[in-house]
């Protein structure tokens, strides 16, 4: 059977699209205007090749300088590589699986390894740095995480990252000094016990062993109200760390996590 072409289909689609709201909520502009001054602009790497005052001699000279600089850079780079140890990068990287929501490769703002529309947060309380979505508001912890307490949305010892709208998406990060003599395994087991009794409880059997930043860690998926959530707890030296919240955002944030 051959389907007849409906000549009114395109106008129908356009009319339907036209019916949608075209006015941004006032809050959106307020948030943008309040947030952007605290965001550092990227550096421009523009060379004024085509300025009218530039003579052909000067252009040739600049081109030659660039070629020489590139050649010197290559020699230095190759030399460094040939003498460098075979070991991996100095900065440890998380071993969690990359999320399928990773930034698209044709993203317009992708420069280096920085994710587009993300910014870097440095924790005043715990000293680490982590990237988070620009549209998330960061609320730093105001006090140290006491022993025996858990990580939650309201706790003052948690660095909190909320989606700006409705605060529906949340990620929390906290760290605490472990008691002297406590092994990593014992610390993680104790944490599981605590979280099993938390308001937003994680059952004991939900945890699996993993590593985060090359450190021993445990991971659990659970529900936060109607939303899925994931939580990692890991030990680095004499400190315990926890990151909890929206699975997609947590996985991406972990990829950029660096200790002080």
């Amino acid at each position: 059977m051959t389907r007849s072409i409906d000549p009114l289909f395109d106008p129908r689609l356009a009319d339907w699209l036209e019916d949608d709201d075209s006015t941004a909520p006032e809050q959106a502009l307020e948030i943008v205007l309040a947030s952007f001054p605290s965001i550092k602009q990227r550096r421009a790497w523009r060379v004024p090749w085509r300025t009218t005052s530039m003579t052909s001699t000067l252009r040739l000279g600049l081109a030659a300088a660039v070629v020489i600089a590139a050649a010197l850079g290559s020699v230095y780079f190759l030399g460094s590589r040939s003498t460098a140890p075979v070991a991996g990068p100095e900065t440890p990287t998380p071993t969690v699986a990359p999320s399928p929501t990773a930034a698209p490769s044709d993203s317009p703002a992708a420069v280096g390894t920085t994710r587009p529309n993300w910014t870097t947060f440095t924790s005043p309380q715990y000293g680490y740095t982590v990237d988070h979505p620009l549209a998330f508001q960061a609320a730093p912890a105001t006090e140290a995480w006491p022993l025996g307490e858990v990580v939650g949305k309201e706790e003052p010892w948690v660095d909190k990252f909320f989606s700006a709208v409705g605060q529906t998406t949340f990620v929390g990060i906290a760290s605490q000094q472990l008691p002297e003599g406590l092994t990593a395994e014992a610390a993680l087991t104790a944490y599981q016990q605590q979280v099993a009794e938390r308001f937003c409880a994680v059952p004991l059997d939900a945890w699996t062993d993993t590593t985060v930043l090359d450190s021993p860690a445990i991971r659990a998926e659970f529900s936060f109200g109607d939303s899925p959530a994931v939580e990692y707890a890991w030990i680095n030296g004499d400190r315990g760390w926890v990151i909890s919240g929206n699975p997609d955002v947590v996985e991406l944030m972990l990829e950029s996590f660096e200790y002080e």
Partner: protein
Amino acid sequence: MDQLDLVDRAARGDRAAFAELATGHIDRCFALAVRILRDRDRAQDATQQALLGAWRDLPTLREPERFDAWLYRLVVHACYTEARGTRRWNARIRLHPISNDPAPDPAHAVVDRAGLEDAFAQLTPEQRAVVVLHHHHGYPLTEIAGILGIPVGTARSRLFYAVRQLRTVLDGDLETAVTTGERSA
């Protein structure tokens, strides 16, 4: 002060210039986002992300006269991120009542809106972006390809398959509605 001056000044860190740009463009950004995402809250998130990203990356914009297209691209990519992050694209199930009013051809009107909403929900974010830019903003495919940073052939094929899918679902819904109406009559 014209837009080119504002873009140039904002790229050099002039906050007042960027505030003026953001104020002037936020409705258009939101209009694009809400049509792609079909959700006001997520559209607001995407709009904010795009505008904040624009401030951060403005110094790297090489062609200030292409600011509008560049900003749309940021909005579309923020929509992709928003869509993938929530993973709710195909999870919406709704019941649409079919009116029994004897008004002229009510089945068509109801099926049009409800059917389009559901059919649109089945498209990928990439297909939605092309459909909205073409059928709402009126951009030709060459310009859409420039905005999205994809080949024209890709833009054309996304539009073709998206419209074909919309048409298939709509025609199917319409047949069902008409059949139901005939049975109940």
